[in-house]
């Protein structure tokens, strides 16, 4: 059932969309349902044909697939590849799908046998390093955040449906934080990744006086060397910066290097 609409005379098709989840908390999908005030408008924008968390019917014919979660097992890779084949547009939904998310925190041990043993003892269980979905299939669009910000998702999906190119903010969270006239966390003695993290969340955490943990990944001009310098100067333990850089996987290599450096020095 494709309803024909137009915008400025350009035909706009109501796309069939599916929501899928790999290893994740399913919070990003839930954010869509959490949009009480605008849920009904959202449903007029797209036709949801596959949403396991919310509906029983499922269809493999969809134009846009939103995939949440990272890949941590062979069957997930298979599922992901099938979804890619079916979908015209594949959207990575949330930090797990974009960067590996919190799931990749276990990768830092390098020894997956130890990880398994720590949790399951000798019980056999399958797992592998948590990876973003772009490590397996081409991804057309990434929507960042842990969790995704519903206002942003709505804006992005509207553009997607209209065929209006999508671009993410190229500036860091500090921009939005200042526009919200917050007191800077550094003035309060707390570390914050705002200066290096891509904006778009409207400084969600720092507006609540919680330093940014970088869930949206690095801003294009992120100056991590300088941030490390700042943390040192402010006498904030380096480890607290590392914890944040490491948390969602967006800062990948930079975080791994920093861990290596800190572990060598300690």
């Amino acid at each position, binding site marked *: 059932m494709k309803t024909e609409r137009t915008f400025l005379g350009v035909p706009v098709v109501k796309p069939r969309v599916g929501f899928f989840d790999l290893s994740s908390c399913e919070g990003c999908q839930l954010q869509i349902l959490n949009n009480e005030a605008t849920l009904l408008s959202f449903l007029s924008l797209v036709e949801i044909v596959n949403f396991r968390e919310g509906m029983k019917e499922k269809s493999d014919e969809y134009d846009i697939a939103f995939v949440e979660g990272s890949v941590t097992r062979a069957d997930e890779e298979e599922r992901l590849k099938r979804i890619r084949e079916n979908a015209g547009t594949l959207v990575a939904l949330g930090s797990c799908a974009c960067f590996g998310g919190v799931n990749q925190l276990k990768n830092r041990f390098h020894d997956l046998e130890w990880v398994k043993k720590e949790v399951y003892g000798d019980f056999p269980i399958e797992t592998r390093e948590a990876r973003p979905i772009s490590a397996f299939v081409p991804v057309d669009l990434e929507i960042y955040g842990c969790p995704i910000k519903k206002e942003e998702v709505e804006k992005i999906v509207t553009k997607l449906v209209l065929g209006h190119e999508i671009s993410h903010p190229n500036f860091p969270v*500090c921009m939005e934080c200042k526009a919200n006239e917050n007191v800077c966390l550094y003035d309060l003695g707390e570390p914050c990744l705002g200066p290096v993290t891509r904006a778009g969340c409207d400084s969600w955490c720092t507006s609540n006086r919680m330093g940014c943990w970088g869930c949206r990944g690095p801003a294009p001009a992120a100056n991590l060397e300088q941030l490390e*310098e700042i943390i040192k100067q402010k006498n904030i333990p380096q480890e607290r910066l590392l914890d944040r850089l490491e948390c969602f996987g967006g800062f990948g290599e930079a975080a791994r290097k920093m861990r290596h450096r800190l572990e060598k020095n300690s």
Partner: protein
Amino acid sequence: MIFKIFQASEVETLFELLSVNRIVGPVEKGRHVNGSTLYDFDVVYDFKDLKLDYGQTIHSAKNYFLPYRENLCTFTFENNDWQKHVDFGAYQAHVFFGLHPCDINALNKLDKVLMGDLYPNPFYGAKRSNMFIVGHSCLPTPSCFCHSMGADSVLGGFDLFLTRMEDEYMAEVRSARAYHILERLETREATHEDHLLFRKTASEKRSLFTCEVDTSDLTKILDMEFESEVWKEWGDRCLSCGTCANVCPTCYCYGVEQEVNMDFSHARKVKQLYSCNLVDFAEVAGGHNFRPESSTRLKYRYYHKHRGFVEAYEESLCVGCGRCGEACLADITVPEVIASVRGSEK
């Protein structure tokens, strides 16, 4: 100009008289880890919350006349046609209570760009025309250098300016409206002693500045040092975060985005204040960036404020409030940058 003297305690009466309006003034926003108080401008309902002895606020008051985000227009769509609706976003008058000279000077500078020139900006103009400004004298903070920028005293652009002199205020009355409000206070005429005391207070203030910028020949020096290595060093430090522009009372540049409602019935055109330090400030479609390195962007900021603007308006676009240096996590401050460009690092 008319001068009046009143008891310091009368300032509360003044506040009460004005409090039928929305008053914006300095309030406490928290405590810095080093123990000092953090101030910012906010709507003040209670005189007790108004902190007239503040040093400097974190942000300028610009959100009230040059909002960080503003709707430029909305569109409504119907049958392949559309209507454009413009609303300047000014609905009520504001009283600004306790602006320092730097911030009033900043407004005067903004007026030149935003209200003069070819295309006056009505969004700003409508708000600017609906302000009643009560200025307040201040003491230098460790990071402000307004005297270097000629912005430590203010000649106009306010309704009333209060200079604290011992336990009295000297009020400069600039508008008839201010004059009439002062009539309801217990005031007296300024005497010769008051004039002397005013000068003494002013010279005492001047002696307290610890921070300085040498602006002599600055426009030429900036041109000569366009290729200087120091820009690269500052650039390496810069986080390209835009904080400096956001806290600055005179930074006004912006970007525009449009967005359509989910049901395609409406669209909005939103302006967001931008910063020339942001990576894509001068990037054009197709990917070419006129200022790809952070050093070129940082340099541009100084060129605009301390050279270009001076050429156009015979004054700098910096009032020396020191906010950008205070807010910059990388400790990039105007006095240090300019000193290094002049080759006179301290």
